[in-house]
């Protein structure tokens, strides 16, 4: 076993400064080297990105602070139910690669509202598209800025607001300067940092616990303690002993697991900051290929996360459950001071009672601990602890930058260039894009510093909103030639409104005195899963309305026939 004595001379804090400093210097150099000179470079990196680079950038863009820090922790407390995130956030890429990316690339525009506006030959459709894009992106980005602040405050011991401001300045620098081009190449570097930072501790811990260096196999192996017991059986046993559900069973209903998985998959495929990545490659075949590469790179982390979840949960139960508080390891006390571990000795026996029964349970552990404290729990060397901080920052910054770009291009391209002032010059539009990016960073930073109570609750629901609005409009736009503007607009408006109302009623509880309980959910479906219902409603409304109204004009039907054929996809153009 590697012992922390090896590098005791430097310490976690200094290692963190070194690694975060080096990675930030790298991102900034890349941003300066790849700054954007035209709107085409600013919006879609000149459509000249290789499939591999685009795949890496997409993966980094996709994996946010939530994927890096929180997901393994959520799974480790949810057990089987955690599969909704694993399948939901990867399965959407199959839909993207097969149903959306190649055709949207062939269509050759800059943004998602651009597609909606052109395909449905209507400025109203475009404006509805812009509003949906802004709503989805802002709910998502506020959470990212908060994540940046949290990581800074925890690892660099600065105030959380200072952390948000440092993060804002960094993102501002390379998003404003580099546009999509700068973001893409920094994201390539950020992918490398974050995947290394996630895998190294996972591999070490897998070897410690099971002797198998591959975490994906390790968590299905026998334990290294010589007992011959399988790790998962052991964890099932530990969980039921403490009164929890069996780890491999979970506690959500089949209907709800189904609905949440579907909403997350479809939402992933409908998220504007993901879709826009496929406008940056050269050819249609590159769009397909880079979706495959992106998913492969994402699955490296996503298939490791459930292993980390099992290791961390077993480790935690074995280390602290029924142990005297006086003999807990150092990391326990350290994370207690951050409030992420709370021990309340209800029966005053000095022993940590960690059980499912809330009235008797004395230990509350935050989801995020599982990744952040995992290296310390497993007593890995200091540089690995510091590496996790650098990786978490890479994950949060890359996602924030991608979202800010969608917000700024929605404003400068879809609103200003296409609707308000079509005569704006190339340079004028580029300046407008940069100003919108600055404004967007400031708004996101404001929400990061003063998080409204609903942000945390709504980030997960951004997927539901994307599923309920964009996904049907894009799919029907490609696969159903008869689809017209009346149907698409009605579908998007009904879909997103229904989703928002359900979210407000059952997640935020603004309509009632008290938040309505599970027993009142429609069909037993949680707000997180309701996106799939709203999406179906969108499909039905779109098709019915379009049947009752005139067919789209001939040239639009020709566009649809044209995007179905990969040949002759020119570079993305604004006209």
């Amino acid at each position, binding site marked *: 076993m590697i012992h922390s004595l090896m590098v005791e001379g430097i310490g976690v804090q200094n290692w963190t400064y070194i690694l975060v400093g080096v990675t930030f210097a790298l991102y900034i150099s890349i941003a300066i080297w790849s700054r954007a000179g035209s709107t085409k470079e600013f919006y879609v990196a000149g459509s000249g990105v290789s499939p591999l680079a685009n795949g890496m950038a997409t993966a980094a863009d996709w994996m946010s602070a939530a994927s890096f820090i929180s997901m393994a922790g959520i*799974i480790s407390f949810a057990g*089987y139910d955690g599969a909704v995130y694993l*399948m939901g956030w990867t399965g959407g890429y199959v839909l993207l690669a097969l149903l959306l990316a190649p055709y949207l690339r062939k269509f050759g525009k800059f943004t998602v509202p651009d597609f909606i506006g052109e395909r449905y030959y209507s400025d109203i459709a475009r404006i509805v598209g812009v509003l949906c894009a802004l709503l989805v992106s802002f709910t998502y980005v506020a959470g990212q800025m908060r994540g940046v602040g949290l990581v800074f405050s925890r690892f660099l011991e600065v105030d959380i607001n200072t952390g948000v401001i440092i993060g804002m300045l960094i993102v501002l620098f390379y998003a404003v300067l580099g546009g999509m081009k700068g973001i893409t190449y920094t994201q390539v570097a950020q992918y490398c940092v974050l995947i290394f930072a996630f895998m190294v501790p996972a591999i070490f811990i897998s070897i410690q616990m099971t002797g198998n260096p591959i975490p994906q196999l390790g968590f*299905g192996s026998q334990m290294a303690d010589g007992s011959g017991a399988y790790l998962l059986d052991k964890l099932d046993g530990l969980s039921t002993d403490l009164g929890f559900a069996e780890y491999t069973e979970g506690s959500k209903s*089949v209907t709800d697991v189904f609905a949440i998985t579907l909403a997350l998959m479809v939402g992933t495929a409908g998220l504007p900051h993901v879709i826009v990545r496929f406008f940056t490659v050269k050819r249609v075949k590159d769009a*397909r290929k880079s979706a495959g590469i992106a998913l*492969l790179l994402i699955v490296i982390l996503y298939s490791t996360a459930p292993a980390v979840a099992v290791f961390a949960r077993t480790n935690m139960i074995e280390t602290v459950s029924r142990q005297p508080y006086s003999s807990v390891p150092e990391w326990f006390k350290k994370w207690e001071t951050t409030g992420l571990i709370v021990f309340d000795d209800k029966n005053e026996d000095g022993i940590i009672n960690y059980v499912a029964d809330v009235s008797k349970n004395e230990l509350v552990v935050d989801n995020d601990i599982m990744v952040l404290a995992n290296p310390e729990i497993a007593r890995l060397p200091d540089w690995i602890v510091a590496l996790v901080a650098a990786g978490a920052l890479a994950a949060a910054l890359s996602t924030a930058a991608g979202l800010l770009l969608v917000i700024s291009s929605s404003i400068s391209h879809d609103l200003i260039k296409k609707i308000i002032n079509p005569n704006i010059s190339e340079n004028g539009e580029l300046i407008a894009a940069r100003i919108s990016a600055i404004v967007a960073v400031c708004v996101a930073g404001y929400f990061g510093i003063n998080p409204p109570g609903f942000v945390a609750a709504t980030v997960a629901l951004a997927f539901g909103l994307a599923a309920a609005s964009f996904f049907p409009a894009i799919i029907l736009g490609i696969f159903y030639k008869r689809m017209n503007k009346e149907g698409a607009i009605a579908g998007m408006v009904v879909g997103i409104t229904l989703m928002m109302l359900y979210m407000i009623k059952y997640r935020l509880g603004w309509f009632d005195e008290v938040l309505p309980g599970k027993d009142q959910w429609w069909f037993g479906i949680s707000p997180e899963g309701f996106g799939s219902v709203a999406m179906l409603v969108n499909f039905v409304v779109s098709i019915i309305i379009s049947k009752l109204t005139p067919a789209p004009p001939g040239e639009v039907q020709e566009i649809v026939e044209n995007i179905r054929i990969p*040949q002759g996809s020119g570079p993305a153009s604004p006209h």
Partner: protein
Amino acid sequence: MAKKAKAYWKENLRYLFILLTIWFGVSFGAGILFKDVLDDIKIGGFKLGFWFAQQGSMYVFVILIFIYVRLMNKLDKKYGYDS
């Protein structure tokens, strides 16, 4: 020309139908709807349904996309759309 495009589109849709059926089968089928049945089978320490939900479906997703890439590259060539 239009005939060629139609035939190309039809073959594409056939691929989509087959691949998406597998996509649905491994995730919503094996990982959710039939999880309990599959859990009776154990491979190493993994119950099979649990494994599909937390591992297997993701691997199949990756493979599906690369199969689609290959099929479509071939199809593009067959119809002369690969220039």
